[in-house]
């Protein structure tokens, strides 16, 4: 039993990371209907920014807020410069633009920082909390705590601020939002900025567990897609729940389903994506695309 719980805890830790990137995906999808395939690469790039700050001698807790600010500005800039011109274009065009962004950011990171792996410090202390035979590492607890914090802050922003109300209005009905005086273009840019910031958090959480290198987020992105699909692409809460479920499912499948092991684990998110799309396309928390006219 303790062994099983241990696997669950480990799964939650991994899941929290998927959740954070899924959250970034959902933030953009909600506002724009765009699935940003470059989200993982932007997170990776942000992580390099943090690494660069630390390489320049800044302590982690200074480098982090700096990175978040840079990421926010970068996200907004990308929306204004790259996404804005294709706003309203057919879906395929936008998909190709974000895939292009993926390749570009990946190559840029390789060009600036090389493809050699780099060590990234773990901001959380080593060691673990022992609880009834289950060991909760501070690292896992830290990751869970950070994701809970991000979720809480987003909730406050959306539900209890005027900017948040404006953002929800734009997500619900952009034409109508314009008519009540909301500057929709800037709101979309704000959404991209927020998503890039949340993505940066997930990159900084992933880097200490893997190594920092330009392809670091590729795997995570697939899990994040599974998480967002499972939770519903238009539901931030769904993204988090979806992330945790995917993390646990993947870990348990790897540990207990003989033929999966650690090699086939990456098949788990694909199975989840397929299953959800077949059975409940809007995801667990998503709204089905039917509304009263």
């Amino acid at each position: 039993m303790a062994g099983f719980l241990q696997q669950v805890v480990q799964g939650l830790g991994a899941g929290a990371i998927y959740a954070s990137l899924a959250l970034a995906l959902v933030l953009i999808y909600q506002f724009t209907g765009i699935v940003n395939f470059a989200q993982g690469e932007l997170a990776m790039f942000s992580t390099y920014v943090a690494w660069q700050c630390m390489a320049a001698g800044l302590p982690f807790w200074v480098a982090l807020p700096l990175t978040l600010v840079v990421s926010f500005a970068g996200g907004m800039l990308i929306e204004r410069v790259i996404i804005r011109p294709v706003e309203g274009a057919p879906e395929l065009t936008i998909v190709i633009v974000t895939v292009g962004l993926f390749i570009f950011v990946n190559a840029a990171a390789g060009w600036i920082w090389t493809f050699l792996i780099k060590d990234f410090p773990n901001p959380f202390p080593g060691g673990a909390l022992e609880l009834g035979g289950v060991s909760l590492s501070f690292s896992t607890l830290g990751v869970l705590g950070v994701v809970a914090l991000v979720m809480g802050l987003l909730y406050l922003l959306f539900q209890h601020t005027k900017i948040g109300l404006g953002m929800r209005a734009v997500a619900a009905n952009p034409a109508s939002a314009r008519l009540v005086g909301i500057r929709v273009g800037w709101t979309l840019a704000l959404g991209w900025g927020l998503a890039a910031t949340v993505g940066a958090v997930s990159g900084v959480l992933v880097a200490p567990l893997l190594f920092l290198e330009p392809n670091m987020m590729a795997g995570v992105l697939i899990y994040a897609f599974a998480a967002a699909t499972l939770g519903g692409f238009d539901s931030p809460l769904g993204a988090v729940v979806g992330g945790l479920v995917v993390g646990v499912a993947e870990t348990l499948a790897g540990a207990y389903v003989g033929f999966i092991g650690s090699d086939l684990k990456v098949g788990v998110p694909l199975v989840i994506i397929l299953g959800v799309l077949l059975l409940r396309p809007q995801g667990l928390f998503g709204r089905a695309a039917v509304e009263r006219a």
Partner: protein
Amino acid sequence: MSELVVDDLVAGYGDARVLHGVRFTVKQGEVCAILGPNGAGKTTLLRALSGMVRTRGTVTLGGTELSGRSPDTIARLGVAHVPEGRGTFMPLTVEDNLRLGAFVRRGRAEVDSDLDRIYTYFPVLKTRLKQAAGSLSGGEQQMLAIGRALMLRPRLLLLDEPSLGLAPLVTRELFRIVQAINAEEQTTVVVVEQNAHLALGIAQQAHVLETGRIVLSGTAEEIRADEQVAQSYLGYRV
């Protein structure tokens, strides 16, 4: 003063022109009805006034130029547009929808007291505050849309077929409220309406729009007395 002056207004979608030089004036505090058959360009006219479509020509409100500005700027200048289809923020609560109407205003206390004012016009909304707006009935959504527009404290209110899809009783009630609003707040109103009876009942001036041109203008009485209009829009002969 917020007199609306529309001069030589041309508008359309892409290359397709819909309005061909529309010209009319609405005096401060008056209600102006726009009548016309389907596809005449009535909705496009309102969209042109609120900046939703590209235009040529001039539109001024109390001397301030509206033409060439974006919808959000025009809203900030005091124009509230209740669009065709009502423009409800479906997943948001009724209260959020109303507060969004006042998005560009400052002063929380004032906005709160305006909410209460809306509830006196539309008591049913007060009983639905925390409900998703998408779950309201058509009539309730139309009330919500008008309430949302009023939250701006508009100088100019644009209404696009408020009666669409509503029961006759609800429609009459709605027009009564629009008339009360116009009387109490001195809001200038442009209303597009299929139900010419009701529209002419609350309007001082009216214009008939056909294929993008105003073909007939006059006071509400004159338009009502016009034989052609009577046949086409009122369903009886004078």
